């Protein structure tokens, strides 16, 4: 399957070409070329997926293929960074996700970004992102993953800050990069620890279940916890940063400053699930050697998903609602991984997590693109500038509704199936966990329909000009993704992706399914009563629970805590004193040497006066002193 190399090479080439020609081409040409290249990439990915799942099952196990692997940088005899391509069920699945959503975003942007300054630059950055993300999912070793991990980070920085004359966009880009960089430091230290003891970066060696690889870790512990656990926890911090897990989630809502299609691609469907993918990639280690860390991941995921869902209920910016919804949904995926084990039915959570990653990517991209279509029409992100849009934007309305039903977990839409598997796995792990996640799922249904009704129903807002449906290039991706959302639930996912690459058949758990559907329907009904027509209940509730409402609207003040730490503590109490210390103490000492020397020479200078009498006097005095010394000592 050598041709998979093209999947990586084409977007890179595209980036270089579009980056170098910059604004010398007509915008339309750049957009068309970018989209065409992505079409080829997507076609290749689909073909690779077909070929992989059809022909590479040996004795009932999907193979791990490495069609390409070259040494890029050698550190020591055993540690070297390779760049290559690893094909296994999860990487192939990610290929489909990344190339599909990226292609849709490319097409959609032809309409959405039309006439924007820097159109070519936008397409160049999209290519860079696509290249980096594909490199990340195809990585053969953890260092290659880290390389592309950083590259997706920078593409995200460039795209969030696309409107670089807007100060809020610049600040958001900076925040996103620095928060994730901080998390990546954990990732890097984790890699250093892991590779020091295992002597390898290779996923193959790390995850094949060969215990001798981890022999170096025996008996090494730090603060009562084994070093392997530290390493894996640190690596997870990297994943938590990219996947916006609490408390590293603060960058994602701000990242909505970027163009909406970018939010759909990077901050909903692909880059933000990199953390989930990382845990899935290293899952055998987590499961076999550090189950404690894995459970920790489940707790972080569960807390984050509930926390973000509560905030999503009260946000009024439609992109922020979606952003918190994304955080919450990634929490679901983390939970699913955290409660899973290796192999067969035991690995239900693992499969569910990947399944949800897939379906979520599609319907969340759909939601964002739909939101973009709305924003395009009304020129605002605020919910209360919308309302009653269903008459003007029928396609957006229907597709958005489908996505809402999917994320709420209503059968037969795709989200129902994947979320149901997650809930089943969570119930198997612990009933409390299952109940908590079901409650969060209910919240999800509520806030999504709150969003839906506020945009498309409710009181009509006075618009400056009548809102219109988006052009065909924007509507087409919506329809395509909606179709995927309708049918993706019927993919027999367990037959393709599983923790040990052995296909298994997963049955729908009817009890769990019926509970979750009832909860979802109840929440939707509630949202319908509250928001379909104008109603006083929401504002009454808001005044009743004003404390909670205010706290949730201000996102529980996490940003303020960060601001305090970075601005007050680090900038004012570390950086400023260091700068002062350097200029005044260290440099002062150096200048002190110089001025002392100068002072000394000024004093001594008087001796060299040129007066013969004075010389004779000193001469005489000296002779007398020496004579005295000779005589009396």
């Amino acid at each position: 399957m050598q041709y998979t190399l093209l999947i990586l090479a084409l977007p890179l080439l595209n980036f270089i070409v579009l980056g170098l020609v910059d604004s010398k081409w007509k915008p339309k040409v750049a957009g068309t070329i970018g989209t065409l290249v992505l079409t080829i990439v997507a076609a290749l990915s689909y073909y690779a997926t077909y070929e992989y799942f059809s022909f590479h099952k040996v004795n009932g196990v999907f193979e791990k293929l490495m069609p390409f692997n070259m040494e890029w940088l050698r550190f020591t005899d055993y540690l070297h960074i390779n760049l290559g391509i690893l094909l296994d069920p999860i990487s192939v699945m990610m290929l489909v996700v990344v190339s599909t959503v990226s292609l849709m975003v490319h097409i959609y942007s032809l309409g959405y970004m039309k006439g924007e300054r820097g159109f070519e630059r936008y397409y160049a950055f999209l290519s860079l992102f696509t290249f980096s993300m594909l490199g990340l999912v195809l990585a053969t070793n953890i260092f290659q993953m880290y390389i592309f991990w950083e590259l997706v980070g920078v593409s995200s920085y460039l795209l969030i800050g696309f409107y670089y004359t807007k100060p809020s966009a610049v600040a958001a880009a900076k925040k996103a990069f620095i928060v994730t960089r901080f998390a990546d430091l954990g990732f890097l230290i984790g890699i250093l620890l892991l590779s020091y003891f295992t002597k390898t970066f290779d996923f193959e060696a790390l995850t094949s279940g060969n215990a001798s690889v981890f022999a170096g870790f025996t008996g090494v512990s730090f603060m009562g916890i084994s070093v392997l656990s530290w390493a894996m926890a640190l690596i997870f911090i990297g994943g938590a940063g990219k996947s916006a897990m609490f408390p590293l989630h603060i960058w994602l809502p701000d990242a909505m400053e970027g163009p909406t299609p970018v939010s759909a691609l990077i901050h909903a469907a692909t880059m933000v699930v990199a953390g989930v993918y990382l845990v899935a990639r290293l899952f055998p280690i987590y499961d076999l050697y550090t189950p404690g860390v894995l459970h920790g991941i489940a707790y972080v995921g569960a807390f984050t998903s509930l926390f973000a869902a509560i905030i999503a209920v009260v946000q009024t910016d439609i992109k922020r609602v979606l952003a918190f919804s994304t955080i919450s949904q990634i929490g679901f995926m983390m939970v699913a991984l955290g409660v899973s084990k290796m192999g067969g039915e035991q690995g239900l959570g693992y499969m569910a997590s990947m399944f949800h990653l897939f379906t979520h990517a599609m319907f969340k991209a759909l939601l964002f693109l739909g939101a973009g279509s709305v924003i395009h029409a009304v020129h605002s992100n605020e919910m209360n500038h919308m309302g009653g849009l269903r008459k003007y934007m029928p396609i957006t309305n229907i597709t958005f509704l489908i996505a809402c039903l999917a994320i709420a977990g209503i059968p037969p839409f795709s989200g129902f199936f994947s979320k149901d598997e997650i809930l089943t796995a969570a119930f198997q792990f612990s009933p409390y966990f299952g109940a908590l996640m079901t409650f969060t799922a209910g919240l999800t249904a509520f806030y999504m329909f709150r969003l839906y009704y506020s945009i498309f129903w409710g009181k009509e807002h006075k618009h400056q000009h009548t809102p219109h449906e988006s052009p065909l290039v924007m509507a087409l991706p919506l329809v395509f993704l909606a179709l995927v959302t309708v049918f993706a639930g019927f993919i027999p996912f367990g037959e393709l992706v599983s923790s040990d690459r052995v296909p298994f058949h997963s049955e729908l758990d009817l009890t769990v399914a019926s509970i979750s559907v009832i909860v979802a329907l109840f929440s939707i009904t509630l949202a319908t009563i509250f928001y379909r027509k104008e109603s006083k209940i929401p504002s009454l509730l808001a005044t009743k629970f004003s404390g909670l409402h205010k706290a949730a609207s201000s996102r529980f003040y996490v940003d303020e805590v960060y601001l305090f730490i970075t601005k007050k503590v680090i900038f004012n109490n570390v950086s400023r004193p260091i700068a002062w210390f350097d200029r005044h103490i260290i440099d002062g000492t150096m200048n002190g040497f110089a001025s002392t020397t100068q002072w000394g020479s000024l004093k001594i200078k008087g001796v060299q006066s040129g007066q013969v009498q004075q010389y004779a006097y000193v001469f005489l005095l000296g002779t007398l002193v020496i004579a005295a010394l000779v005589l009396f000592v």
Partner: protein
Amino acid sequence: MNFLSLFVLIPALMMAGLFLSKSRNQIRTVAAIGASLLMILSGILTYLYLTQRAAGNLAEMLFTSDTVWYAPFNIHYTVGVDGVSVSMLLLTSVIVFTGVFASWKIDPLPKEFFLWYSLLSSGVYGFFISTDLFTMFMFYEIALIPMYLLIGVWGSGRKEYGAMKLTLMLMGGSALLLVGILGIYYSSGATSMNILEISKHHIPMAFQRYFFPLTFMGFGVLGALFPFHTWSPDGHASAPTAVSMLHAGVLMKLGGYGAYRVAIYLMPQAAHEMAWFFLILTGISVVYGAFAAVHQTDLKYINAYSSVSHCGLVLFAILMLNTTAMTGAVLQMLSHGLMTALFFALIGMIYGRTHTRLITEMGGLMKVLPFLGVSYVIAGLASLGLPGLSGFVAEMTIFVGSFQHVDTFHRILTIVATSSIVITAVYILRVVGKLLFGAVQDAHHQHLEDATWYERLSVVTLIIAIVAIGSAPFWISNMIHDSVVPVLSQIIK
């Protein structure tokens, strides 16, 4: 005559040519031709070196030659190169070349400027090709003196103060060095000052304990070792563009190179024994420099403190005494040299247009100066270690190498040093955000002209080098690694 001596001879011929030239155009032509010849020469040298190695030549130094200068004192002129010096020569050629184009419009006294500039280059080249302690020291001094005049005459701001401070502190360093070198020579009992020969003698431990710190600190001053780094912010801030480029890009590398070639190579036992102390100092440099940079508002100060942090990493890695970290140190010298030169070039170009270097007085330049803006972002990304650019390769080699150390102390220090990647991101993005993005702050900046052809040439050359090392690091990394192995195997033995 050995062809390595051409590296010293070409700058000398450039000086003669400059001396004879009459007009500004003639001066430029001479400088450009000379710099291009040097660039070609180092390309040829790299090619020859690699073919020799590929043909199985295992000698520690290639293309060696030895001429007696003054027999009574055993003073020789000895030259030779290994992978480390070849990469340093390549770096020097790139910086000298781009420096010429960055000072295309230097005013006043272009002739004198380029004369001193050529002398400075010949000193640097001489330092990297010599394998004799005396020759090395002599070229080191040749490189230092022109600095004073270049900053004092063509500088800006408090230029006399900056020039004096820089020269005095570096001279102080070279005084320590002179004692160290003489000490090494006499206590080793060798019959010449040739490094290769001295390395075969054993210097008694009692002497090593004195001379290692002297030599290491002597070179360390030049490599911005904490707390002897304060010449760097003031010196750079007042230096003209090309001098900042050459100084931060190459001259500071003399420190790291010398520490490796002289201090570590000749006194390995003392290095092993005393490394912990200097590791702490360099560790402080790395983090402290980065934190100090966060708070600066003058572009040159930011870059100077950033250099303290990055060069601290060079010395830090050298002291780890293992092949990977040492390779990383050399890569970091290359990488830092290129990107800091790029930074200083861009800062000079921006200053030439806006007449300020304070980020508080600028903003939104990306829209007005897209070429310079994009290049500044690339330099910034290289500095914060983005994969695909040189910084990443160097830093990762250092971190992975240092982390292979068996002592927990060294590994913990490495973790402390890795934290600099976050702080670097903070100060780089702060500057980029403030300087380039947002709305144009000053109405006078609305109509600035973007880069001219000679500025573009200079910037693009540096960017190509940064991308080349960053995306295809294997060949240069292997070349350095192969040269470091024999040196370190002697130490470990």
